[in-house]
């Protein structure tokens, strides 16, 4: 039996003189004419030029080759160009093979003779490989263009509003009973010192009034299935025992006999067993602390129910499991304040009047436990306050990094104090000062002029607090001891408690520091490590309010540009696939796939690739002991042929 010898049509590109000066193209042409498996098209001066492209297309139309080898530059430059040109004249892209005789040959081999021989080997390998190619098919998929936003801080709020403005349905999931995140717990936002509630209130009401946004509070995402364009998200919403008809009028607060430590006030104040976080919250409805409410504890109280003018109290409300679908998921779960419990020198929790910046912010906040009044534990006004920078940061037993935004917060303390107590002395003890932008730096300069005294220690980790009569004494390397009445520890920002769990649920990566990892730090900084999932605000690392909003808008912009109603998304073409007849069901492929793209059909004992999730790394193919898994366009046969082609030219 004689098999017709397949032939590859060879295009030789001179690339101006970039190739032809270093490689003897005539000799290659001569070799090609004798090789038997190669048909030579003329060499062209610049194949990627408009003229060259036309030549390429015309020649393909005329010669109808089995396969094509383009001996030119790197496939990373122009593989796609020539594949698309081929498709435009009905030649399947898989039959286009590039031989990189420029970057990998002409430009790196001084001896022209050697470079010519190597070029022949590369072309031969490309031709041999091309004969093994199987046609590739472009795949597209219809997408859901709605979005789920997880976390209702400023970043999540802005993301939701932007997406809703583009007429997308948004599910905004917040674990607390109302929106606002960390910003609503502060009084003013440095460096512009805009009032936080004034900034947030209109945004909150915009969310409330937007019919495209469904706010789901007291809720957490506990399962996500699917992929970019087609996620199914399961949300567990805990009962709050107050119906949506509640307008937050607070009538029940007066009658509730139970006081509970308030987490919103960082345990520095109390709230009733029926509570809201702050007046004007979104949603407005109150919630009940089931563990403390007497109705639940011993059925001895119904006071709130009787007091409610709207009949909104419902002790029988049940937890709900809600399932929604979306094309993109935006993670806006923010941060947690740096934990300094383990740093003994700072005496946090051991000495009175030592607070973290978060606590200090609550104290001076008009919606705070003391309605904004700053006082010592004994009720008196402080006379001197110290702020310790980098408390628990940049040390191995705390946060090993610099959060980059706490110096501004630390500088803000003095300003907030002077707002109500103009004569208090403020001293900020620091080792490093970080003000990443000019506005932050001028804010710091203003604080110096306004009276904050900045003291530089040689080692901020050496700061030691001790009680000295009624006062607090601070020592540190390189400074004289300081005595004050109140200390504010400027803690860093660490990943939110749920980051790890969410990363597992979504199968995305975290950075070493525990914040969510970007798909690409520069080019796709708001993309998570899986398509269709975004990371915004402090979920992606410590940022200030301005950057939290910028990242939210950036992520939504990217999502909107990719998920367009009525437009299908293009899928990865060179995915893996598994031959069901060869698969032995060992599941080794499943263990190595970095994207969990492979599932096992338990009935048939075989594995199959979800080609929407697969990115085509080919790792499963290398692992498969049965030869069942195949990497499209990078098949074993193609690679074996290429190896052979390189060695036997």
């Amino acid at each position, binding site marked *: 039996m004689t098999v017709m010898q397949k032939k590859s049509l060879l295009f030789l590109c001179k690339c101006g003189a970039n190739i032809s000066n270093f490689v003897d193209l005539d000799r290659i042409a001569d070799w090609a004419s004798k090789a038997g498996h190669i048909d030579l098209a003329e060499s062209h001066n610049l194949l990627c030029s408009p003229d060259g492209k036309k030549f390429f297309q015309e020649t393909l139309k005329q010669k109808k080759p089995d396969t094509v080898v383009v001996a030119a530059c790197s496939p990373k430059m122009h593989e796609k160009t020539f594949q698309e040109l081929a498709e435009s004249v009905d030649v399947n892209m898989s039959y286009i093979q590039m031989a990189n005789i420029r970057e990998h040959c*002409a430009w790196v081999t001084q001896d022209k003779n050697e470079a010519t021989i190597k070029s022949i080997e590369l072309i031969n390998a490309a031709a041999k490989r091309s004969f093994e190619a199987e046609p590739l098919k472009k795949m597209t998929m219809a997408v859901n263009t709605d979005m789920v936003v997880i976390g209702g801080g400023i970043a999540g709020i802005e993301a939701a509003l932007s997406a809703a403005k583009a007429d997308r349905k948004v599910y905004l999931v917040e674990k607390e009973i109302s929106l606002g995140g960390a910003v609503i717990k502060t009084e003013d936002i440095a460096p512009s010192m805009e009032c936080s509630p004034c900034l947030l209130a209109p945004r909150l009401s915009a969310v409330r009034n937007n019919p495209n946004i469904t706010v789901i509070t007291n809720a957490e995402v506990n399962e996500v299935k699917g992929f970019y364009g087609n996620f199914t998200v399961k949300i567990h919403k805990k009962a709050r025992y107050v119906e949506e008809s509640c307008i937050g009028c607070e009538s029940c607060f007066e009658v509730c006999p139970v006081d509970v430590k308030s987490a919103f006030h960082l345990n520095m104040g109390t709230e009733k067993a029926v509570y809201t976080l702050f007046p004007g919250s979104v949603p407005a409805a109150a919630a009940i602390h089931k563990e403390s409410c007497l109705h639940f504890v011993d059925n001895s109280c119904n006071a709130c129910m009787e007091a409610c003018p709207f009949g909104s109290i419902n002790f029988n409300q049940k937890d709900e499991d809600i399932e929604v679908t979306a094309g993109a998921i935006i993670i806006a779960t923010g941060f947690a304040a740096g934990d300094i419990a383990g740093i003994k020198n700072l005496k946090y929790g051991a000495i009175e009047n030592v607070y973290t910046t978060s606590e200090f912010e609550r104290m001076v906040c008009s919606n705070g436990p003391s309605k904004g009044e700053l006082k010592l534990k004994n009720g008196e006004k402080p006379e001197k306050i110290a702020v310790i920078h980098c408390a628990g940061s940049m040390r191995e037993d705390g946060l090993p990094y610099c959060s980059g935004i706490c110096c501004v917060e630390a500088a803000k303390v003095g300003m907030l104090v002077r707002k109500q107590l103009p004569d208090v002395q403020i001293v900020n003890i620091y080792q490093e000062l970080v003000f990443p932008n000019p506005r932050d730096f001028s804010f710091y300069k203003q604080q110096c002029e306004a009276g904050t005294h900045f003291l530089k220690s040689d080692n901020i980790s050496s700061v030691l607090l001790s009680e000295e009569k009624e006062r607090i004494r601070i020592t540190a390397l390189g400074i004289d001891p300081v005595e004050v009445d109140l200390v504010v520890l400027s803690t860093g920002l660490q990943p939110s408690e749920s980051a790890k769990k969410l990363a597992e649920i979504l199968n995305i*990566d975290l950075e070493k520091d525990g914040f969510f990892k970007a798909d690409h730090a520069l080019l796709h900084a708001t993309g998570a490590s899986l398509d269709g999932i975004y990371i915004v605000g402090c979920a992606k690392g410590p940022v200030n309010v301005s950057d939290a909003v910028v990242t939210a808008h950036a992520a939504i912009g990217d999502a909107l540009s990719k998920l367009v109603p009525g437009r299908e998304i293009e899928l990865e073409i060179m995915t893996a696939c598994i031959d069901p007849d060869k698969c032995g069901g060992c599941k080794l492929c499943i263990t190595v796939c*970095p994207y969990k793209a492979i599932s096992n059909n338990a009935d048939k004992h075989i594995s199959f690739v979800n080609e929407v999730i697969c990115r085509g*790394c080919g790792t499963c193919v*290398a692992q498969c002991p049965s030869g069942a898994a195949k990497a499209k366009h990078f098949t074993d046969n193609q690679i074996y042929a290429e190896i052979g082609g390189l*060695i036997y030219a």
Partner: protein
Amino acid sequence: MPETTSTIIAFVCNWCSYAGADQAGGLRLDYPVNIKLVRVMCSGRVDPQFVMDSFRKGADGVMILGCHPGDCHYRNGNIKAMKRSILLEQMLPTFGIDPKRFRLDWVAAGEAERFKEVVTEMSETIKNIGPLHLKGFVESEVA
């Protein structure tokens, strides 16, 4: 032995090492002509059989070059490559192949100099060991 008569096959991942080699070209860094690259999407795609096949067909050295650990475009394919390589290196002597003929290394897209360094070193190593003669193992022709 002269470079031109020995062959080193290097499997390089598309995202880092192939790009690193492209950059070496862009910078006109001269390196031994016996280095021949086979592009794969990720070093994790490299089946140890590809390495064996290269030796069988006459390669004197084989390399796998991928992104640095932590930088794999597909999260951790390079770690898979590393695990497989450790096993492979242990097996090579049973086929009469000096494990020094095989090398796994990392070259980032921007590391043109490093690409040149790594492949030049490999070329030197192969020059020192000499050609590989796999007795009774070599296929005569490949389709």
